């Protein structure tokens, strides 16, 4: 019913080209998250869908209507803003009813919709209060409620959880996910937080400098990042990157760098072939490294020296030095090491990534 299509979408300000050739097909009832560092064009893209920014070039379709020239009011969308955007002079009820009043809905219909939304969000008790009498979490619920009562075809969320403290953010994240499953409405959600993106999105769109870097399901982005940026952006702590030389020895390919030398797994060997003798970037996630045991061959293990130990309770993060390279590893909480201990690490050969040094694309 309400799919959203973006075709060759561009936004140019005087000097800045904020959004570049964005092509995206958001399916009906899908929850799509746009994620990226600040200035990547994610919010601008969302605001073009809302109609708050003019489209420089390209086309946006909501449902089966091209909305480029439709005023925001007629696009059948509802938006939730980062700072809630509640009207300080109106009660919670009036804030939630605002959109319907502006559209001249009959009063009983407004009352019913507001009551229903308040019930879903558990804010019936707050309807008579003013926004300033509410906590951050309650305000955010009201802002979401104001969007729900409109029964829109598409929900637009612009960093809705960024103003909440860490604990509340996790809680609201779960509530939003539950809400989406209940309402079954298409949603576009903008955030700079990759954890929010991974946990909420049916699909995640990673953006940088106005370009879409990769579109995919969360685990797809995590497991098969399309380029070095996505690899480093998704996952925490971030993927380790080490520059290596692709060397040919003993009938196999090796990733060689001062400090360690690991055998390239057969699966990647074919693609790495053309890079023989050249430098590429090896990527390995902290969780794909572990303390080597006797059964780990020399092919994919190497010596390191412990620099920093960060015990997190459920796990320990280690900053290790392998030759000139600093590598972060996530190890079992039972591992007992301290600064300047020697330690042999093994890497999961199937989970090593390689990136072209020039294009930064995955090899």
């Amino acid at each position: 019913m309400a799919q959203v299509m973006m075709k060759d979408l561009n936004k140019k300000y005087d000097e800045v080209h904020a959004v570049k050739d964005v092509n995206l097909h958001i399916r009906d009832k899908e929850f799509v998250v746009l994620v990226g560092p600040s200035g990547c064009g994610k919010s601008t893209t969302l605001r073009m869908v809302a109609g708050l920014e003019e489209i420089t070039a390209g086309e946006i379709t909501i449902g089966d209507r091209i909305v480029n020239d439709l005023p925001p009011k007629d696009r059948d969308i509802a938006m939730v803003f980062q700072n809630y955007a509640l009207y300080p002079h109106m009660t919670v009820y009036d804030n939630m009813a605002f959109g319907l009043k502006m559209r001249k809905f009959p009063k009983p219909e407004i009352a019913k919709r507001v009551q229903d939304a308040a019930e879903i969000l558990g804010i019936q008790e707050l309807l008579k209060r003013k926004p300033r009498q509410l906590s951050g979490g309650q305000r955010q619920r009201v802002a979401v409620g104001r969007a729900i009562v409109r029964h829109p075809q598409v929900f637009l969320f612009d960093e809705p959880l960024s103003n909440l403290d860490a604990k509340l953010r996790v809680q609201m994240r779960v509530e939003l996910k539950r809400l989406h499953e209940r309402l079954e409405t298409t949603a576009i959600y903008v955030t700079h937080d990759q954890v929010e993106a991974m946990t909420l999105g049916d699909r995640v769109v990673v953006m940088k400098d106005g370009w879409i870097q990769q579109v995919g399901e969360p685990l797809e982005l995590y497991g098969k990042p399309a380029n070095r940026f996505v690899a480093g952006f998704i996952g925490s702590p971030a993927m380790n990157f080490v520059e290596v030389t692709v060397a040919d020895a003993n009938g196999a390919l090796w990733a060689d760098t001062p400090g360690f030398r690991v055998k390239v797994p057969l699966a990647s060997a074919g693609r790495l072939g053309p890079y023989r003798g050249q430098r590429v970037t090896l990527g390995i996630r902290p969780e794909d490294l572990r303390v080597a045991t006797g059964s780990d061959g020399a092919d994919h293990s190497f010596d390191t020296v412990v620099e920093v130990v960060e015990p997190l309770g459920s796990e320990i993060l280690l900053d290790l030095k392998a030759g000139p390279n600093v590598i972060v590893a996530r190890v079992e909480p039972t591992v007992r090491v301290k600064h300047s201990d020697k330690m042999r690490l093994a890497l999961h050969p199937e989970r090593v990534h390689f990136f072209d040094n020039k294009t930064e694309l995955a090899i």
Partner: protein
Amino acid sequence: MGSVKAVGRARDIRLAYLLLAPAVLLLLTVLAYPVGWEVWTSLTDLSPLKDGAPEYVGFTNYRRLLAGAEFWRPALVTVVYAVVTSGAKLALGLGFALLLARSFRGRALVFLAVFLPWAYPAGVSVIGWYWTLNPPTTTAYAPFMGHLKYAVDGTFGTGAWAFVSVILFNIWRGSSFIGVLLLAGINAVPPELFECAVLESKSPWRRFWLVTVPLLKPFLALAVFLSLTSAFADLANVWMLTAGRIVFPIIGTHAYFLAIKAGQYGPASALSLTLVPVLLGVLLVLFRLFDPPRREAA
């Protein structure tokens, strides 16, 4: 323990009064004493034309004022002056502010043009206005302005043109100030509040009344108050624009006339003090609107 605390507290209180003293002294000398003197004068027959000590006359000055045209005519003119200029200034100022809140090419220049009337010293610009409206020499303006003056005076009586020019000058200068004041107000409102309204309504008119005006209420109240005061308490602009030939006196100019030209300090003081309850009333009404929307904690 308790006594130590009490001693410390007493010392704090003494220090507080000590720190307050300069401000209190200043207020007493420049505000309380002159106002007190004026109140006392309004109850006497103090006059430079009368020998001997001034005599206490009670409310005679007030009674005489309220009984004659000496008070009612300037009062009426003052109200017309204040209401007409405030209405126009508010409308124009709000227009300027809404215009300048958008971004467009040449915005800085327009801002300068809007702000200039306020930034320019009134004493100088008022002469510019006087010469434009009553050209001292023959210029391109002169014939047109001459015709206009005769037309207005011919219709509404001698001095009407001068009164209109006072109103125009006040609007010209004041709308500039109110425009800048309201622009600051608009800039203090998070832009999402306006955007949220754009998402819900196509009609700028509905958005203006349902969102912009309520959000700007505290700033509008302040603007109205400042505008009314500037008109009620005006003297210099009227005096200069009419070169002292005042046919339509307002309370300020008439009090000045009574005191300085006619030497009647008592009635003059009484006349100017009649403004106090009016302004207090206006302030009280507007004060209820002042309560600014408290900022939502981030």
